[in-house]
């Protein structure tokens, strides 16, 4: 059975009690539906995470300096800034 309080906490969704009841019911219906997979034998099957077979694609490990203009564009999207930094609430 799904522990909705635990999932809400992990997913940082801030659900109300009413929403928790609603979602718990809906999620149970979906989980019942996907339960079907248990019928499939997969002991010797390898998993697929990437369908075209690419492996270990990497780029050169080098930072790229942003132009002043690019910096400005990105910082304009930030809700709270101070002296060109992203401002957040105190963590500790």
């Amino acid at each position, binding site marked *: 059975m*799904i522990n*909705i309080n*635990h*999932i*809400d906490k*992990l*997913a*940082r*969704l*801030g*659900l109300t009690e009413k*929403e928790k009841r609603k*979602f718990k019911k*809906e*999620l149970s*219906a*979906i*989980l019942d*539906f*996907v*339960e*079907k*997979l*248990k*019928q*499939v034998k*997969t002991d010797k*099957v*390898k*998993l*697929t*995470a*990437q*369908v*075209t077979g*690419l492996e270990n*694609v*990497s*780029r050169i490990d080098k930072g790229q300096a942003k132009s002043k203009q*690019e910096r400005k*564009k*990105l910082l*304009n*999207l*930030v*809700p*709270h800034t101070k002296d060109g930094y*992203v401002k*957040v*609430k*105190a*963590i500790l």
Partner: protein
Amino acid sequence: MNLNKLTIKQASHGLAKKEFSAVELTEATLNQIKKRDKDIYAYLTLTEELALSQAKRIDKKIANKEKIGLLAGIPVAVKDIILVEGVRCTAGSKILENYIAPYDATIIKKLKQSGAIIVGKTNLDEFAMGSSTENSAFGPTKNPYDLERVPGGSSGGSAAALAADECIYALGSDTGGSIRQPASFCGVVGLKPTYGAVSRYGLIAFASSLDQIGPITKTAEDAQIVFDAIKGKDEMDSTSLNPPDKIQNSKFKIQNLRIGLPEEYFVKGIDPAVEKIVKKAISQYEKMGAKVMEVSLPHTEYALSAYYIIQPAEASANLARYDGIKYGLSEEANDLLGVYLQTRQHGFGNEVRRRIMLGTYTLSAGYYEDYYIKAQKVRTLIKEDFNKAFEKVDVLMTPVSPTTAFKLGEKIDDSVAMYLSDIYTVSLNLAGLPSISIPCGKVGKLPIGLQIIGQQFDDEKIIKIAQEYEDRSI
């Protein structure tokens, strides 16, 4: 002449022959939007100024006798989950309601270089999660064939805009059927390319191992034109790739074509009227000389379950970035946790929260092996089913969706019923295969699509096969 009704090919021809200008073509499209879109609601944002300035540039080039490509001067509608620099990109979500894209997606960069005219951004289910466009935080799009019905989803705005002649072609994204199903419901052509064939850089991420961008067009010929312009490996998307070196032979003779019908796709659950029309379309190919045979994809019944584990799992990870700190909606609170909770509580709609929770659950300690790993193993079996079928046949043909466009509100409260409308499309995303939806008839006034599925990198081939149908059918 209604310029906005032209195909890419026709419009491009007209521009080259100076029968009309790019500005005239763009204005015809914008006028149609003004006339029709208050009923359809296909567009979330119009980029009229950008469009007209791009059109003027193309007209200048034509006047100067510069060589222009097939897409130069042609108006395109872009699904509002693909970034266009300086233009708002909402992903259909309140959390990005005021987000201004800071850069162009790779495909937008390519299309701009081809001289494309971007007329606006189209409506979608929030973060592309849905099959009807009803999950948009900004209200549903209506089907141009029947305003009481959905256009399909999640690229419903793009398909509806095209069907209503509010653009010459459109761009969509497809994670489990989101290009093909709305194309089917709206009577237009939709191509989901091979996974990785088109760069996803600048596409807002939903489920990264499944997402793919593709064209929605009036004809298969147009789909090829757009695909040529947007495909190819991109340094900015590590999953993108060019077709392998072995020579890709897209040449074929219809007389030698072997078409497979997956027996598991023509079973109960499909509307008999839909089945009849799809089978009739397939018999057209038979008349042209193709061989049609039954094949089996034994793990078909597990595909939707595997998809509804893998896709929400990836979504829950991708959507963790919306925290109210770097961009998008940010709610006030006393502490950092409060900012996260308030922002996500107010920013996300129901379907998005449902999928985040589902994904969080199936990835959580104690359940990861049973759900996520299990689903990825089943994914392997589904892919192997297709490999085996393709030993016997060249392509597969199936319906796109078991029904025609359903009524607004009909499935919105029943997640599983809504998910079932993607039963014929999700397997292809799990296997990374290309497939195209083409209009093949109507039940009453509602269009139906035929789905043609190829092996990985057979994109060109399935487009050509689709074209054969367009050319020969009346």
